[in-house]
C-alpha cells in the first residue's frame, strides 16, 4: 500500500507547511530520513558567499569572449582575425583551426554516444555554421570589455545557405543537407543517401491493424511543439588554467565534472590524467549543463595566451542562442478503445528536431509516450532529425513533455467521448507491475495507478470548479530514471563526525539528502556528517547529476559507506574488547558487546587510536525504479485575450521514499513550474532565415512568481524495491504531465482542443476564433 502525504492546500497553512522537522521524528522507524534539516551549503547561499563559476578570481585572469554566427546555415569561407589580434589588451584569438582534428566516429564518452567530429564542431565551427549563435572564433583579453570589442573586429566571410528550421523543412525532397556524411541509422541498418534524418527506430507489438479495425472508438490527432530552453538562471561559465607543465585545471558550472573531463579530453586530445575539473556551485542545469561549450575554448585560449588563466562567462543571449534547448517536435497519436473503455491499441509517431547535430531525446520520448497505459497492441516510431537550430541537450525528462502532451490530449478526448471520468479512465487502463512499457520491457513495482488515485482523492479533484471559462484537466506522465555510477569516500573524525567526499554536483539540496542517508546508516545525527562535493582528482569516476539519480545512487554509495564504517568499527572494537566481531552489536548509536558499551562519538576516538579509519564506495546500481506523476490543474481563460490564468495546481508523484521531503516537494514544484512555462508561453521564435528573435529573458517568457499559484504536492511513497531506503528518482517526471494537463483544462474551459504548444494567448485566441468560425459556418467535422 502506498503511503501518501498531502502537503498544502490552496488555502495553505504556514504552520504545517515547510515546517522544519529536524528533531529526529522521521517516519517508518527512520531517525533522519524523512526530516527536513537545513542543507549544509545553505548559509553560504543565503549570504552571497557561495562561489559559482563566474565568481572564480585569480591573479592574471584573462577574459574570453566568443564570436557567434549571425547566420543559421552558411559555409565559412575564411576568418580574418588580424584586426582583433592587433587590439591592445588582446592576448589570444582562436578558431576551429586551433582544435585537433576529430574523427568522424561515434564514441561513448560516458555522456552518451556521440560522433566526435560533431562534438568538436559544436565547440568551434569548422567548415559550416549550422545555427544562429554557432561559435566560430574566440578571444582572450585583459578585460571582458576589450574581449568584446576584439570579437567585433573579427571578419568572417560566409557563403549563405538556405536555413532548414523544422521537421518538414528537413525531410522535404529537395531539403538542403546539413551534414554531408550523415546517413540514416535504422537500428543498425545504415542508409545510402545523404539525409537530415539521423535515425529511425520502432517499438511494435501485437496486431495494430486488427485492433484499430475492431475498435469501438478511435481518436487520432497531430500535434506540434516548439523548441524550449532549460532556462537555468546562471549562464555557463568556466575558467581554465593551462600550466606550462601541461597540467590543466578547469573550474566550471557543470552537472558532471567527469563528463567535462571526458569531453575536454576528447575534443582537445589530452589524456584525462592531465585534466582536473573542479565543479563550482552550479546555478541550475536541468540537463543543460552536461555538454561542454566554453571549457575547451578557455583551455585553448589559455594555452595560446602563454598559460595565463582564462575565464569565459556566457551572456544570456549566448545561453539562449547556443546552448541546450530541447527539441521541437511533430507528433501523431492514434489510440483505440473497446466498448468498456479499455485501450486496445496505441500508435505514436514522434518526429524530433535534434538541432544541428544528431541526438534529440526521441528515444526517451518513445518510452514516455504511452508508458502510463497497459496496451497489448502498440507501435511507437521515433525519428531523429537535424535542423539549423542549436544542438539539443537534455532537459528534465528529455523529450517526455512533448510526447505526453500529445498522448494525454488524446486520452482526455477518449475519456470524454466515452463519457468516463478522466481519472477513472486512467485507473482502468493504468500500467502496473508486469505490464510492458512501450519498448517491451516489463515493469517491476510501479506507482502509476496510485498517483491517479491520489489525484482522484485529493481535495482539489473532489472540489468542483465553478465559473465560466474555467476548466480542469488532468494528465499522467512517466520517466525512466537512472542509476549511473557514483564514487564517494568517508573519513571518520575522532570527534564522531564524518567527512563525506562525493562528486555529484549539488543543484537542489543533494548534499543534504546524501548526508542524511549516511547519517541514517550510521544511526548518527545529520549534523555529524560533513558532505563536500569534490573535484575529479579526489574520488573515482562519478556520473552527472542527472537522470534523477543523485539521491538514489550517490545516496546508495553513502549508505554503503555507512555499512563499511560500521563494520570496521565493530571489528576494531571487538579487538579492543577482546571479543569476536560477531559479538559486537550496534543499536541506537551505541556499540555493545557483553557488558561493554560505547556511544558512536567515543567509539570514533577509540577505534582510531592506532590507525585512521576511512571507507570508500563505488556503486553502479541498475535496479532503479521509474517514476510516475499525475497532476490536476484548474485554469481560467480570458475569452477576449486568450490568456490563461493558472488557478490551482496539484501534483501527485510516486517518489519512492522521500529522504528530505522539502527538496522532494521542491523538485515537484519546480518541474511543474517549468512545465507550465513550456505549456503556455515558452518558445524559440525564429524568422524565415533562421535568426533567433527572442534570445532574452524579456522575450523568452519563463513564469514569474505572479504567473503561478502555490503548487500543492502529494508525495506517493511506493518504495523502489532496488534501493536500501526505497529511493526513487524524483527530479524529472514532474515536468512530463503539465502541458497535457493544461491543454485538457483549456479544453474544459473553452471547448478548444489545442494541437500545439505553447498555448500562448495568440495561439489560443486564434484557435478560439477558428472554432467560432466553424460553429458559425461549416458543420463540425467528425474525427472518429
Amino acid at each position, binding site marked *: 500500500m502506498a503511503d501518501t502525504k498531502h502537503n*498544502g492546500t490552496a488555502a495553505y497553512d*504556514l504552520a504545517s507547511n*515547510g515546517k*522544519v522537522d529536524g528533531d529526529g521524528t522521521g517516519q517508518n522507524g527512520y531517525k533522519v530520513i524523512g526530516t*527536513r534539516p*537545513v*542543507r549544509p*551549503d*545553505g*548559509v553560504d*547561499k*543565503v*549570504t*552571497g*558567499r*557561495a*562561489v*559559482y563559476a*563566474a*565568481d572564480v*578570481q585569480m591573479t592574471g585572469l584573462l577574459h574570453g569572449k566568443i564570436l557567434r554566427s549571425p547566420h543559421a546555415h552558411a559555409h565559412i569561407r575564411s576568418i580574418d582575425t588580424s584586426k582583433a589580434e592587433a587590439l591592445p589588451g588582446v592576448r589570444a584569438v582562436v578558431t576551429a583551426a586551433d582544435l585537433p582534428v576529430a574523427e568522424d566516429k561515434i564514441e561513448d564518452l560516458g555522456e552518451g554516444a556521440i560522433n566526435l567530429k560533431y562534438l568538436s564542431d559544436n565547440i568551434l565551427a569548422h567548415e559550416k555554421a549550422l545555427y544562429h549563435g554557432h561559435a566560430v572564433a574566440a578571444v582572450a583579453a585583459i578585460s571582458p*570589455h*576589450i574581449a568584446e570589442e576584439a570579437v567585433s573586429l573579427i571578419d568572417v566571410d560566409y557563403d549563405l545557405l538556405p536555413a532548414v528550421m523544422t521537421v518538414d523543412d528537413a525531410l522535404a525532397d529537395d531539403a538542403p543537407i546539413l551534414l554531408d556524411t550523415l546517413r540514416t541509422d535504422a537500428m543498425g541498418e545504415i542508409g545510402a543517401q545523404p539525409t537530415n534524418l539521423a535515425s529511425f527506430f520502432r517499438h511494435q507489438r501485437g496486431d495494430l491493424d486488427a485492433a484499430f479495425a475492431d475498435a469501438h472508438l478511435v481518436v487520432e490527432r497531430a500535434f506540434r511543439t516548439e523548441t524550449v530552453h532549460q*532556462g*537555468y*538562471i*546562471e*549562464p555557463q561559465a568556466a575558467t581554465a588554467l593551462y600550466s606550462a607543465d601541461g597540467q590543466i585545471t578547469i573550474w566550471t558550472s557543470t552537472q558532471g565534472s567527469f563528463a567535462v573531463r571526458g569531453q575536454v579530453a576528447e575534443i582537445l586530445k589530452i589524456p584525462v590524467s592531465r585534466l582536473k575539473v573542479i565543479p563550482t*556551485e*552550479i*546555478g*541550475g*542545469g*536541468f540537463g543543460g549543463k552536461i555538454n561542454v561549450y566554453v571549457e575547451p575554448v578557455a583551455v585553448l585560449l589559455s594555452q595560446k595566451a602563454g598559460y595565463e588563466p582564462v575565464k569565459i*562567462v556566457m*551572456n*544570456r543571449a549566448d545561453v539562449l542562442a547556443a546552448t541546450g534547448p530541447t527539441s521541437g517536435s511533430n507528433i501523431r497519436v492514434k489510440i483505440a478503445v473497446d466498448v468498456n473503455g479499455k485501450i486496445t491499441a496505441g500508435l505514436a509517431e514522434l518526429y524530433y528536431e535534434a538541432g544541428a547535430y544528431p541526438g534529440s531525446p526521441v528515444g526517451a520520448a518513445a518510452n514516455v509516450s504511452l508508458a502510463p497505459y497497459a496496451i497489448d497492441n502498440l507501435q511507437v516510431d521515433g525519428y531523429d532529425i537535424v535542423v539549423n537550430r542549436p544542438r539539443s541537450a537534455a532537459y528534465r525528462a528529455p523529450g517526455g513533455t512533448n510526447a505526453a502532451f500529445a498522448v494525454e490530449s488524446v486520452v482526455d478526448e477518449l475519456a470524454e467521448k466515452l463519457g468516463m471520468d478522466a481519472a477513472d479512465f486512467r485507473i482502468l487502463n493504468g500500467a502496473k507491475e508486469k505490464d510492458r512499457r512501450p519498448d517491451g520491457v516489463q515493469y517491476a513495482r510501479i506507482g502509476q495507478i496510485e498517483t491517479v488515485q491520489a489525484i482522484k482523492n485529493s481535495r482539489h479533484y473532489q472540489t468542483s470548479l465553478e465559473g465560466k471559462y474555467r476548466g480542469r484537466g488532468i494528465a499522467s506522465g512517466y520517466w525512466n530514471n537512472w542509476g549511473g555510477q557514483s564514487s564517494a569516500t568517508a573519513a571518520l573524525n575522532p570527534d564522531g563526525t564524518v567527512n563525506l567526499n562525493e562528486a555529484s554536483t549539488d*543543484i*537542489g*539540496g543533494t548534499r543534504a539528502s546524501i548526508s542524511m542517508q549516511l547519517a541514517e546508516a550510521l544511526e548518527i545525527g545529520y549534523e555529524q556528517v560533513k558532505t563536500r562535493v569534490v573535484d575529479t582528482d579526489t574520488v573515482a569516476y562519478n556520473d552527472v547529476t542527472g537522470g534523477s539519480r543523485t539521491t538514489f545512487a550517490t545516496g546508495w554509495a553513502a549508505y554503503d559507506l555507512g555499512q563499511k564504517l560500521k563494520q570496521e568499527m565493530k571489528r576494531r572494537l571487538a579487538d579492543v574488547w577482546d571479543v569476536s566481531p560477531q559479538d559486537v552489536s550496534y543499536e541506537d548509536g551505541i556499540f555493545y558487546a557483553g557488558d561493554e558499551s560505547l556511544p558512536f562519538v567515543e567509539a570514533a576516538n577509540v577505534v582510531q587510536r592506532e590507525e585512521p579509519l576511512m571507507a570508500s564506495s563505488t556503486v553502479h546500481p541498475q535496479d532503479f525504479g521509474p517514476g510516475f506523476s499525475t497532476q490536476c490543474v484548474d485554469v481560467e481563460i480570458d475569452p477576449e485575450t486568450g490568456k490563461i490564468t493558472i488557478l490551482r495546481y496539484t501534483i501527485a508523484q510516486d517518489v519512492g521514499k522521500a529522504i*528530505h521531503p*522539502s*527538496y522532494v*516537494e*521542491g523538485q515537484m*514544484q*519546480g*518541474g*511543474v*513550474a*517549468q512545465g507550465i512555462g513550456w505549456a503556455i508561453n515558452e518558445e524559440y521564435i525564429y524568422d524565415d532565415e533562421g535568426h533567433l528573435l527572442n534570445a*532574452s*529573458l524579456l522575450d523568452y517568457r*519563463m513564469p*514569474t*512568481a*505572479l*504567473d*503561478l499559484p*502555490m503548487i500543492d504536492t502529494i508525495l506517493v511513497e511506493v518504495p523502489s524495491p532496488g534501493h536500501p531506503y526505497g529511493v526513487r528518482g524524483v527530479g524529472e517526471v514532474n515536468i512530463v504531465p503539465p502541458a497535457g494537463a493544461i491543454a485538457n483544462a483549456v479544453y474544459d474551459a473553452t471547448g478548444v482542443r489545442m494541437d500545439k504548444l505553447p498555448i500562448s494567448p495568440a495561439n489560443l485566441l486564434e484557435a478560439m476564433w477558428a472554432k467560432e468560425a466553424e460553429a458559425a459556418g461549416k458543420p463540425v467535422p467528425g474525427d472518429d
Partner: protein
Amino acid sequence: MANKTAVETTLNGEETTFLCEPRQTLLEALRDELGLIGSKEGCGNGNCGACNVLLDGVLVNSCLVLAPEIEGRSVVTIEGIAEDGELHPLQQKFLEHASLQCGICTPGFIVSSKALLDENPNPTEHDVRLWLAGNLCRCTGYDKIVRAVLDVAQNNA
C-alpha cells in the same frame, strides 16, 4: 582604453572608494573591483533580478546602474543583509523552508524581499508575488520562496 574614475560611496554601511571605468555597471564594480560576488548576473538587462541591490534604500538592478552613478550614495548588497553575524530573518526562513535549490537567484530574492518588507511589513500572497515578479527562479516554482517571505511577515506582525 577609458580612464578609470574614483567613486566614493557608502557600501553596506562602510565609506568606500573604488576605481572604475564609466562603462562598468554597478554589478561589475561590485564583483570585479570590490570582490562582492553575492550579486549575480543572470541576464545583464534587468529581466531576472539576480543582481538586485538597494540604492539609497530603493530596489534596483545593479546591472542597469553605471558604477559612477553611485557617487555619494548608499548601496546595500546581499553581503550587507546579515547584521553582526546574525542571519536576517529572511535568510533564516529561506533556509528553513528550503526556498532555494541551486541558490543562484537567492541573493536577489532576499534583497528584493527585504525591500518589500521594509515598505510593506504585512504583505498578502499577491503582494509578495507582484513585488517579486522581477526576480526569476527556475528551480522552485516560487512556492517555498513566497511561503518564507510570508512567514517572516507573519512573525513581524
